[in-house]
């Protein structure tokens, strides 16, 4: 844990040295939420019926989807990106020469990305609440639990992409494909009921579908975790199965890279 935190601290110090970059990132987030608020307001009459079971208020619906997608993007892209740049700069090889275990290095490398995403999400949430998004603050613990499960279900895609970086020096289009499919079919911008029926069938294979449905039921409707148990069970199943698979593939990739002598090459 201490080693992991040391790496997170190093990432934070590095990021903090680019102050303007941090400021621009936060300002652009604020710039994004204002148009979303007005567009959501304009579309409210159209969307009201289809999101009746998920809060019924389109701005709140969108806000939950966008925040979740931010975490999803971090879960899927941060590891392959950080690993790639760490290998290219040589820091990865240097870290592997220490007593830190590979798991600690991997977690420490992406830890800051998750913290920064959380900060941005919090800011978005505060602005959203200020603009009147009907989020139920008292349901935060349950919401965090569901968000955690969603992240756990998507980190495996990041691990698989990172395995690609280790073994083939590219993550291919896996992260982009996962984010596109999840964004379109997982109910980020609209409920899955509004998409054609054959696509609805496909959306059942997307973990985000279950996660967002449960999350919105809790924070927008005030529903209990028990009421979302079926969705959470499927989401947990995805997380478990994908984690097992991705860890196995990642271990194989490390072994392959060590065998072929390409662990520290990019």
């Amino acid at each position: 844990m201490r080693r992991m935190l040391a790496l997170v601290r190093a990432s934070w110090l590095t990021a903090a040295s680019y102050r303007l970059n941090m400021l621009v990132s936060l300002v652009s987030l604020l710039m994004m939420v204002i148009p979303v608020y007005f567009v959501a307001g304009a579309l409210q009459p159209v969307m009201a019926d289809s999101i009746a079971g998920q809060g019924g208020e389109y701005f709140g619906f969108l806000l939950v989807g966008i925040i979740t997608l931010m975490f999803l993007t971090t879960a899927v892209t941060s590891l392959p990106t950080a690993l790639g740049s760490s290998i290219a700069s040589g820091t990865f090889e240097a870290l592997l020469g220490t007593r830190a275990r590979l798991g600690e290095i991997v977690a420490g490398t992406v830890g800051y990305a998750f913290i920064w995403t959380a900060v941005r999400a919090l800011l978005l949430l505060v602005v959203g609440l200020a603009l009147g998004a009907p989020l139920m603050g008292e349901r935060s613990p349950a919401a965090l639990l569901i968000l955690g499960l969603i992240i756990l279900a998507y980190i495996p895609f990041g691990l698989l992409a990172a395995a690609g970086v280790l073994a083939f020096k590219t993550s291919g289009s896996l992260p982009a494909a996962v984010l596109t499919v999840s964004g379109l079919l997982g109910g980020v911008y609209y409920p899955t009921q509004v998409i054609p029926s054959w696509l609805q069938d496909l959306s059942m294979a997307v973990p985000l579908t279950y996660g967002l449905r449960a999350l919105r039921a809790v924070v927008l409707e005030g529903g209990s975790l028990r009421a979302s148990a079926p969705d959470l069970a499927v989401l947990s199943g995805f997380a478990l199965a994908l984690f097992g698979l991705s860890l196995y593939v990642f271990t194989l990739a490390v072994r392959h890279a060590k065998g072929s002598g390409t662990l520290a090459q990019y």
Partner: protein
Amino acid sequence: MSVVAPGAHTVSPAARIPLAGEAIHLAGLTKRFVVRRSLGAALRQPFLRQWSPALVDISCTIEDGEFFGLLGPNGAGKTTLFKVLATLVLPDGGSAAVGGYDVIRQANQVRKILAPVITDDRSLYWRLTARENLELYARLQDLPEEAGRRRVSELLDAVGLCDAGSKMVGAFSSGMKQRLLIARALVARPRILLLDEPTRSLDPLSARTFRAFLREEISGRQGCTVLLATHNTEEALELCGRVGVLHQGKLLAVGSAADLIRQMGSERYRLWTRCPVPGSLAALEREGVVDGIVSQPDAEGWTRTEMDVAGGLEGAAKVIDALGRAGASVGRFESVPRTLADLIEGIIDRRRRSSDA
């Protein structure tokens, strides 16, 4: 110290357990890599695999506290050997033990006593200060907070970066970054240090200072076992008690640098005389003391002659005697430093002759 042909020292992995005093023990270590083929070739013969040997049956022992040089041209296998020892590359055959720990089965133990010095300064966190870089590694190496801070201060002092500790590494010169890389490797007080061409990016003056630092501080005061990979023969001669010559993945010889040159049978000398001298050396050439004589006049009226002289200082004395008897006017007579190419050529030639015999 003696020059050892690799075959003579080959020990089967099971036959010898590393002793307590051994820092590194290699037995029949082998590694090969797949040769990357063009897309066309891969499509024509998708299942064909071509291999390139990187390490071939390497057997060698390095004692605790030694300063050992690994001498070889680019592509000789030095970096691969270092990566095997640092547990970054898995060997295909044989065994490698560091401080008695196997590099495959006990990789975590190996990393506790061995530190590779990654000489690429990009591996530092450039946006962090020197102190922050070292403190990060102190935490990664499990040093308690206070002890880590003390160790970092000690190291900054030892590598002469005390005043630059709070400066961002990106603003450092190449020499300062090299010293910081060394300090980083020393954070956890490793018993064994692997240095892969550490002076590659340094100017001659910085390189000399750095070599003095290695000899006095790292090897002397800190008492580390140092493995230095270099293709600079002078550097190896200056620093290392023993050197191993690696060529095309094979360990051609191990011994003290001076012994290696001596046992190759001859040293190269350069001579300046007023007139050509090959005639005066004919007798010595027949006796086999002198060989490979090459003479050429230079612009200032002197003739420069180079020759291989066998028999060490005795042989050189015979040459001076012969020149004196012939009344040659000698302006200068000097030993020519052996290049790495000379050393490898000489060792290969010697091995060929001994196998012919």
